[in-house]
């Protein structure tokens, strides 16, 4: 097709900069603008106390969304992370309140138990959907229910309290008056994901599988391996997010995490990752999670009622996807 064989008259260096601007900096710019808007209009928004609150509030969603980014990059979706988180909180809390263990050992075992539980759920999601070629939408919808039920069984339908004091203290810790410990955890998870996606062979394969899994298969790879791995990572981050949940709320609850999967997906999509796979960035996901929370907090401080808040946030999600389509068109012109 003649119109595509010609490249636009943009120098390579400038093209690179423009690409960065359109693809990566767009969401960041949106975050800055929204923050500036609320700082100017909403009372108390531009205070250090409020900033801290936002950091605390986005931690769980950021960790979930980090794993979700892997799944969406391969072209899948994981609806189960909310209830897997619930299951992990009750498993982790049960281990942690075991009085025969010293607090340090109990906390370590709880962390491992959370991560293992989440990873197993994620692995099952990936394995079932690739082995029987079932859309991940359906399989993870099933897992959503199963994990939720399992959480009730494990907890005997009750809330688990009485976590070790040292654990609770760490959850409330604010490093250097500005960095909540749980936000640090979230940032570390994002950093690890960024490194894997950007610098490793595994990360490259995640993008390639999402772009065209059949071409990857015919190039001599097993795309299912990477899909299963992405779901396992998503389960793993749900386990880590469960630990963050325990740090923040100090209870293990079978009804925790309801609707969390939708927030995680929203963060990934607002962050510019394409639902059809192959395109996106985990830094974008972090920014997307920030945008969601800044909006939520900002609207609240502006006095927008709880009824109208979801309407605005819903509109923003749709807007993000529309902008994504335009972004693609712009990118094609630059390339």
């Amino acid at each position, binding site marked *: 097709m003649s119109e595509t*064989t010609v*490249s636009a008259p*943009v120098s390579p260096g400038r093209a*690179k900069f423009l690409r960065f601007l359109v693809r990566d900096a767009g969401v960041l710019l949106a975050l800055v603008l929204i923050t500036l808007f609320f700082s100017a209009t909403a009372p108390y928004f531009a205070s250090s106390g409020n900033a801290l609150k936002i950091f605390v509030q986005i931690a769980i969603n950021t960790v979930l969304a980090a794993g979700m980014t892997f799944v969406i990059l391969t072209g899948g979706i994981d609806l189960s992370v909310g209830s897997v988180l619930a299951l992990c909180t009750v498993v982790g809390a049960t281990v942690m309140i075991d009085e025969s263990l010293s607090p340090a050992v109990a906390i370590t075992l709880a962390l491992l138990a959370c991560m293992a539980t989440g990873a197993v759920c994620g692995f099952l999601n990936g394995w079932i959907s690739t082995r029987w070629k079932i859309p991940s939408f359906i399989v993870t919808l099933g897992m959503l229910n199963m994990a939720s039920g399992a959480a009730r069984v494990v907890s005997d339908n009750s809330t688990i309290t009485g976590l070790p004091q040292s654990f609770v203290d760490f959850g409330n810790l604010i490093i250097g008056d500005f960095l909540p410990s749980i936000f640090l955890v979230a940032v570390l998870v994002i950093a690890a994901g960024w490194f894997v996606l950007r610098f490793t062979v595994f990360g490259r394969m995640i993008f*390639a599988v999402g772009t*065209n899994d059949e*071409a990857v*298969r015919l190039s001599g790879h097993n795309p299912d391996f990477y899909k299963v791995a992405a779901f396992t990572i998503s389960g793993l981050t749900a386990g880590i997010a469960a630990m963050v949940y325990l740090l923040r709320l100090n209870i293990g609850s079978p009804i925790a995490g309801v609707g969390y999967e939708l927030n995680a997906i929203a963060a990934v999509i607002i962050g510019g990752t394409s639902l059809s796979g*192959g395109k996106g960035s985990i830094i974008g996901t972090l920014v997307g999670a920030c945008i969601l929370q800044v909006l939520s907090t900002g609207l609240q401080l502006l006095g927008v009622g709880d009824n109208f808040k979801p309407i605005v946030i819903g509109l923003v999600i749709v807007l993000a996807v529309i902008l994504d389509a335009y972004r693609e068109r712009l990118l094609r012109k630059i390339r």
Partner: protein
Amino acid sequence: MNDAILSLEGVGKIFPGAVALSDVSLSIARGETHIILGENGAGKSTLIKLLAGIYQPDSGRIAFNGQSYQPKTPHDAQQSGIRIVHQELNLLPYLSIAENLMLESLPRRAFGIVDRKALNSRAVALLTEVGLDIDPRTRVEALGVAQMQLVEIAKALSYDSKLLVLDEPTATLTPPEIERLFSIIKRLKAKGVTIIYISHRLHEVFEIGDRVTVLRNGRLVATRDLRGLTVPDLVRMMIGRDIADEYGFDASIVPGKVALSVANLKRDAATPDISFAVRHGEILGVAGLVGSGRTEAMRVLFGADPKLDGVVEIDGKPVAIAAPKDAVRHGLSLLTEDRKGQGLLLDMPVDKNITITDLSKVSHNGLLNRRAEAAAANDLVGQLRIKASSIEQAVRNLSGGNQQKVVLAKWLFRGTSTLILDEPTRGVDIGARREIYQLLWMVAAQQKGIIMVSSDLPELMGMCHRIIVFSKNRIVGEVPRSDFDQERILSLAYQEYVRP
């Protein structure tokens, strides 16, 4: 021409950064079959999209039937009586053939209920016209590409079109199917329909065309009567220079020992088993009609589809191939017939497409070495003369020929011992085609085996040491180069279909 059905005057189209068409003036006579030739990027597609109402011209005027013609949408074009069969098929896979044929005006009974009886009987009539003997209730997804192409043409016939534009209709067809298409075209012409016909295959245009227009780099080179012209004349007009021998058969390459042999390969209980072998340094041609089992055999051999039975030997040693990764590990490479759907990561850049076959070469302990990757990619881009603005350009934005070179590059990067090519030059223009042929000779000179599946018989006869012929899933014959003969190969390809 006094009685022009369509006339273009100084038509131009500019895209950001490039002139796609410039000052094209052309007049199509009523009732003629007008051939349009040009390499990829010459402006043919743009011209068609202007006629189809997909693009609007930036300059110049178009008149159709004596009136100014300014379609804003494809629907406008259809309303005016211009019907276009695009190169990319536009059928709905989950609907039946009949529904696809009459989608725009389904016959109805009261209350808007579809009149199935009328629908199917009209569909049968249309299918008969293009020589397709298939139940019109069949879902389109069950058809082969060639059959879909014929359905697409039947769809165009279902409207009373005054001007029919066919964009590379024979790209996916085999010789007998092409014959049938040509007889349809001749019949339409006798009915007074004007036809614009675009093709890459120069040999065939003489049979149906009255006049030819050649485009090069968005400009019109010439419009001539086809009578008196030869293929070399057309080539010269298209590329602006002579091409002596397209294929460049390299007689200095002597095939050595058997590189790959396949014995009693069977894909399921219903299909016959096949056996063949290719030598080091040999180009083995695989001929046959579309749907004769050529592609399927290659896919089973490569592990892309499951196999029931059979032994594959590489350099005399049996190897187990259960999935493409096994085939690749044993040095096989497959260039698929569907390069966009199965060969390339379209939205990823050139370098990442090339290194995907073996990332261990550009990584250490699982960490990518981007500098080594760029160096390797640049190396192959230079060696294969891939035209891209940089290795960071998305392969989607490359021309067909350059995309195909990227697929070749990715296998050369891996290092292959036997290369299986399925329709390697489909949709590739003459210039790039010739470069691909040269590249294959370079590969053969390194004593690698090449298996080449192609529907372009002159191409197989120009390139191959030996040709095996498929007919209805069976290998019915093997022809050595000394005995190459178009008719003989064709009659072999037909053999199993004409048996009582």
